[in-house]
């Protein structure tokens, strides 16, 4: 069985004061290989928790995750992760950062150099190969992070708001790059974002999560990612259905936020 299956995943955190928080409750998902899923939701809906469990950094209190037929029980190279920022190794050059995964596997130098060169071409950083990562701009750093993840040939790429810290223009360019890489590599991608537009543009599938307890609220299947590959993303945004879905989801998240506010006011 290929793909990623999330089955009745629950996560409860026990707080020091004796109470507990139900971060996730009965979350189930079935991702086929090569699907791009974007995850939206108000703060506290458990989307980062979900990603950390899939990555293997957290063990769920109930439920299982299965990747290509085997159960996930810890972090592994098959599930690569791209963080918002600050996860690059600043003591290594761009080249060494990208080659980190292959190095850990003990890949021969020439083979590794080939992979690194290819990926730096793909993300357009060939000229910055020997630079220190802290000399690059935020957008370039995220390109390095993407390349580093891809160099390891993971089956699934987990992205935790990878473009969240970038300015609007850079962000648009990077969205195009993510789509391009997705199409070219055929990886399964789970992308967490705060931006509804980004989720619509990049998500072939999109889930909106609701908080307390964290659960899947609504699921969409969207055409925009396919439309956007290699195209001007601004054209995609002009699609009438795009605006309509955006408003619908914004309304949905708005209501959730309202409800949270209301509940905390009652308390």
């Amino acid at each position, binding site marked *: 069985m290929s793909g990623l299956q999330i089955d009745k995943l629950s996560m409860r955190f026990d707080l020091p004061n004796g109470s507990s928080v139900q971060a996730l409750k009965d979350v189930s998902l079935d991702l086929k290989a090569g699907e791009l899923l974007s995850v939206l939701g108000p703060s506290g809906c458990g989307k980062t928790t979900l990603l950390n469990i899939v*990555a*293997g*950094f957290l063990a769920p209190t109930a439920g299982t995750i299965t990747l290509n037929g085997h159960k996930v029980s810890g*972090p*592994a*190279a098959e*599930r*690569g*992760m791209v*963080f*918002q920022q*600050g*996860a*690059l*190794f*600043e*003591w290594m050059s761009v080249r060494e950062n990208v080659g*980190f*995964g292959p190095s*850990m*596997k003990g890949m021969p130098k020439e083979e590794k150099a080939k992979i690194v060169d290819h990926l730096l071409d793909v993300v357009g950083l060939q000229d910055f190969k020997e630079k*220190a990562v*802290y000399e690059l701009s935020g957008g370039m750093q995220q390109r390095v992070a993407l390349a*580093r*993840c891809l160099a*390891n040939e*993971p089956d699934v790429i*987990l992205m935790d708001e990878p473009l969240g810290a970038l300015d609007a223009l850079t962000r648009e360019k990077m969205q195009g790059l993510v789509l391009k890489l997705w199409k070219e590599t055929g990886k399964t991608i789970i992308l967490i974002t705060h931006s509804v537009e980004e989720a619509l543009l990049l998500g072939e599938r999109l889930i909106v999560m609701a908080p307390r307890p964290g659960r899947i609220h609504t699921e969409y299947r969207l055409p925009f990612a396919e439309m956007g590959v290699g195209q001007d993303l601004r054209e995609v945004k002009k699609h009438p259905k795009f605006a309509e879905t955006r408003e619908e989801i914004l309304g949905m998240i708005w209501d959730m936020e309202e409800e949270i506010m209301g509940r905390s006011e009652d308390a």
Partner: protein
Amino acid sequence: MELLGNLWGEFWAVLTTLFVAAPYIIGYVLIILLMMVIWSGIKRLLTPKHDYSSLKTVTFGDESAVTSNTVASVVSIVLIFILWGAFTGSKLLPGFMHAPGPFKGEGSFEYTITTPAGDSDTATVSVVVHPTGEDVAAPQVAPGDGIAKNDAVAIPIYRSELLRVDNNDEMGRDEETFITAVDGQAIAPGNSVDVSFGRVAMSDKGTLNIIPATGMQMEPIWMPSPEAVWSRLGEIATVGYRNSTLAEHLGYSLFRVIVGFMLGALVGIPLGYAMGLSNWFRGWFDPIVEFMRPVPPLALIPLVIIWAGIGEVGKIILLFLAALWIMAIAARSGVSGVRISKVHAAYSLGASKWQIMRYVIIPNSLPEIFTGARVAMGVCWGTVVAAELVAAEKGAGMMIMVASKFQSTDIVLMGIILIGIIGFSIDMLMRQAEKWLVPWKGKG
């Protein structure tokens, strides 16, 4: 309550000293301001400013507009040497720059005696003030007429002389004849009279105390001139002091610091890593490290001397202890300072625990360790000098301590300057090493 009273008295004494020093401090500040005005005038004439900051309208409060002015630094250092030279009568400075020096040469004053019968007579005392160390005889003077006879005396610079001027007079204090005036001004026991070359005071018994003016310069025994310190440096460097050359003294001090620091780092860094990576080790060593860290290494000197004597072993144990806790704490915070996302990223790139240690945790902790090493080297250098002050066969601290016992202030001063230069160089070297070895510091 008595303690409080005593402390208040001490505090008052400190305030008084400050008050006495105040004119000099104010003078120094005025020199600084004067130099600033002069330099800004020169600069305006020389180079109209055209860099990016020349158009800034807000500079006061703008941190980026304040940089260290090199000219000010140079002038400040030069001024220190000038002041040093001026107040020690240095030959490196032209005479007009000297502070008023002590009186030197010949002078004289007259004294008047009055007999019980009411007669009075006047005689002259010739005074020769000569440099210390020179053997100068009092000049020959004719006794002159009258009851009072002329006298002569030779006095070394900065000294005073009690002189029984009436010893050779025809009628002295045994005949109830007393000195009543000096240079025409009345004098009585306990009083003094200003004369051309200084002051003449009268003791309680009626003897004149001749006090040539000392000026504002400092006596070499308190503060030797720069050239005296420099020539002493040459002498100690070649001939040596207390059976060791200067290089040996400094070499021993540095050797102790380096060996002590190395051992401290060798034990402290793994200890810090263990504390940063394991709850058990953190719990085990936290109380020990947190207790030992605030204990000044100097406070351990007596114990170390009791246990290990004053030889190299004792010194190195002391410096080892001085460096150990600093390095352990630096390594610990270096390890705990690693961003969890870096560790997560490494795990999801397939790194093993050992690889995380080698490629993430250790490089991530290096900047902290370097900062710790800089602090530790500074503390070790201070500690070794202090330990040598207490007891040592060789070393920079021992050198200045022994020199101070013989009032060789020039050696003390030279030693202090050298200790400062070495401490400063150590810090500079560590900074440079940091730049080369951990260029990513603060960039994460």
